[in-house]
């Protein structure tokens, strides 16, 4: 079988990010970039599947040449080959889903496993949109993935409890945080990844236009948090909230 895993290059989730003075974007000169943590979980899950049964894991990223770093890391974890769709364009979730649709059609995988959201814009849309565009079943926020004969079974954690879904393959699965804990990338794996193939495809060659309906007007950092004060009683708390206009009457 073949598993397609999209990976997004995002700022290190633990990095302190700062906004450029003109508000046009983030200051990226000093930040480290990583695989989106949810995508890394997806890579780990796909690689674990390939360790259990015959499966090829193909990782795909969309963006600038630097995305190759994240693809190499995915290959070091154990993916078999990579695809980099090259574009400098800004994309929103639908734009990404339309590109992934083309990659899906080119590769015809049995399964797509991807992060439920990326930690940069937290949109949580691309997986669902991809499923809709391909008219394929989707199982989101997977906390457990099992492969049965021609079907996939996903356990997801909901507010009401655990929910178990089954869908025929091919289908789209998005990963939640508790699906697995990604392994340490072993040094021999990193060395082996150097010789694994990464196919570079200019976006135009996929026959799809870069699309972005979401326009970013300006970024600004959240206002610094004001110091709080300690209140002695519930009455005092209520009074203080009324004073601030948070409570009426």
């Amino acid at each position, binding site marked *: 079988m073949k598993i397609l895993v999209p990976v997004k290059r995002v700022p290190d989730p633990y990095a*302190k990010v700062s906004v450029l003075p003109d508000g046009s974007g983030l200051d990226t*000169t000093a930040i480290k970039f990583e695989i989106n943590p949810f995508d890394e979980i997806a890579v780990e899950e796909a690689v674990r599947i390939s360790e259990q049964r015959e499966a090829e894991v193909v990782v795909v990223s969309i963006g600038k040449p630097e995305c190759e770093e994240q693809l*190499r890391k995915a290959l070091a974890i154990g993916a078999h080959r990579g695809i980099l769709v090259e574009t400098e364009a800004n994309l929103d979730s639908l734009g990404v889903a339309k590109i992934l649709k083309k990659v899906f059609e080119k590769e015809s995988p049995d399964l797509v496993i991807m992060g439920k959201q990326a930690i940069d814009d937290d949109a949580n849309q691309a997986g669902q949109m991809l499923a809709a565009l391909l008219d394929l079943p989707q199982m989101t926020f997977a906390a457990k993935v099992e492969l049965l004969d021609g079907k996939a079974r996903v356990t997801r954690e909901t507010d009401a409890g655990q929910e178990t879904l089954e869908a025929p393959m091919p289908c789209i699965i998005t990963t939640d945080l508790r699906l697995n804990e990604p392994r*340490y990338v072993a*040094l021999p794996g*990193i*060395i082996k990844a150097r010789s694994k193939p990464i196919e570079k495809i200019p976006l135009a060659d996929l026959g799809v236009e870069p699309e972005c309906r979401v326009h970013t007007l300006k970024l600004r950092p959240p206002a610094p948090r004001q110091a709080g004060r300690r209140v002695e009683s519930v009455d005092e708390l209520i009074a203080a909230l009324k004073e601030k206009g948070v409570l009426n009457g």
Partner: protein
Amino acid sequence: MSAMPDPTGATQGLRGGAFLFGETEDLFSPEQFDADSRLMVETAYSFCKKEVLPVLDRLDAQEDGLMESLVRKACELGFAACEAPERCGGLGLTKSLATRILEALSLNGSFSTTFGVHAGIAQSPIVLFGSDALREKYLPHLLSGEWMGAYALSEPNSGSDALSLQTKAERTADGYRLTGTKMWISNAKWAQTFIVFARTNEGVTAFVVERSFPGVTVGPEEHKMGLKGSSTARLELEGALVPEENLLYVEGEGHRVAFNALNLGRFKLAAMALGPARAALHHAAQYAKQRKQFGRPISEFGLIREKLARCAAMFYAAESMLYRTGGIVDHAFQQVDDAAPDRAEKYRRAAEECAIEASIGKVFATETLALCADEALQIHGGYGFTEEFPVARIYRDARVTRIYEGTNEINRIFVATRLTKKGVFQQLLDCEATDECHDLFLRSVRAAWETMGENLISDQQICARLSDMAMNLYAVQSAAVRATQATGPQGEFGRACAALWREQAGVALAAAAAEVFGRCGKAGEPVSLSSSGGKDVDAIATAVLESDGYPIL
């Protein structure tokens, strides 16, 4: 400008000792690691943070099986196989990268010592000096972590004077019979192999001794002040029978095995000192931000900021020296063909290439750790003196690094002695100065040489002052050149650190020079160096506080 003898055909600036002549070309720094290399370093760093740091209390209590299982996990990820050539099952990485990985694994002293010995001096004698048969017999077990290794040179009455060792190796029909006691053996509790040095009729000779050989026993654990999680015990050899093929290198040439393993060992020990120093700076920065006095976080106070800045600046200098030396070591080792029949000779000369840099790097990095551990504790105030906070452990663990792998005193004497005996001081007499620090160093060398000549090696104080000056020169130069090569915020931070360190080192250089001149009848010689008045303290402190510690990995 005259030059040092050049046994490896190294290019300018990449020869050992070139810095003494003011050469700085081709300086290697951590900023030059590529993305793959950085991924390896990050893996090591996250392994240490997630697997080692949460279990420090249990490690210090020597919980059964815990340290061995951590070492095995680290080996499974390839960390012990970094340097060994691919033809003997290693990954064949550069020594610089292997050292950066070791640094990232070294946030805790006990784990660092255990793993560092296993992956370093317990292994490198076999890689560098072992026959193909010995390599095949032992390296697979050591690289995979199935076995742990140890290195046994010191004895109860033979420490700094290592070649006075008394352990005997008598010839038998099919090998050797070893008798004696080896002391301070790291990993003794766990090791399956020991690199043992003993005396035959031909002189000091190195052997690979297995724990299972008849006549080999390990004594009880020493009760140490720190590094409680590491194992340190005696190795007793009571007529231990060692087969002939376990003799390493050449009979009577064991001192070359010992000293070259130690050259590389000292180079790496600098990394093993920077690991805990990084941890100390992290705790210091975090605590300073969170602790409030007089209504403000203490990180806003000038003296706290100065401590953080001085620690970071010295760290930057130590790190710059370490990886510059790494570049020199790699250059020397890359000339060696591992498949050649005379590889041991070539490896020996390659390991000798960095002898001076490795020694001063060890001294400087362990003194950097001493400063960082001490100031981190000071920043914690009374809380730092309790076991409730992690700095007390770092402080205790740090102390021994100035003692082992050659005390810092022995290393200082070694540097001056070697520079004298190799004729380097003499060559420096007509060397032109490249800057004011270099000028002060050269004038001090001239004053000492004109007054004492080769006899200066019998004056330990003069030796120490000249070694310290060489060390500070290497630190100042390495930090400054690295900082000018770097770009972006790392470049800015580096230039601030280099400038502050230059100022700190300037004070030390001037004091050492004044003493040399005084002892050589030139008391009036000018020694003062320019100073920028600590203008970089705030920028460095801010960077350290924002990053919760030293900002570069």
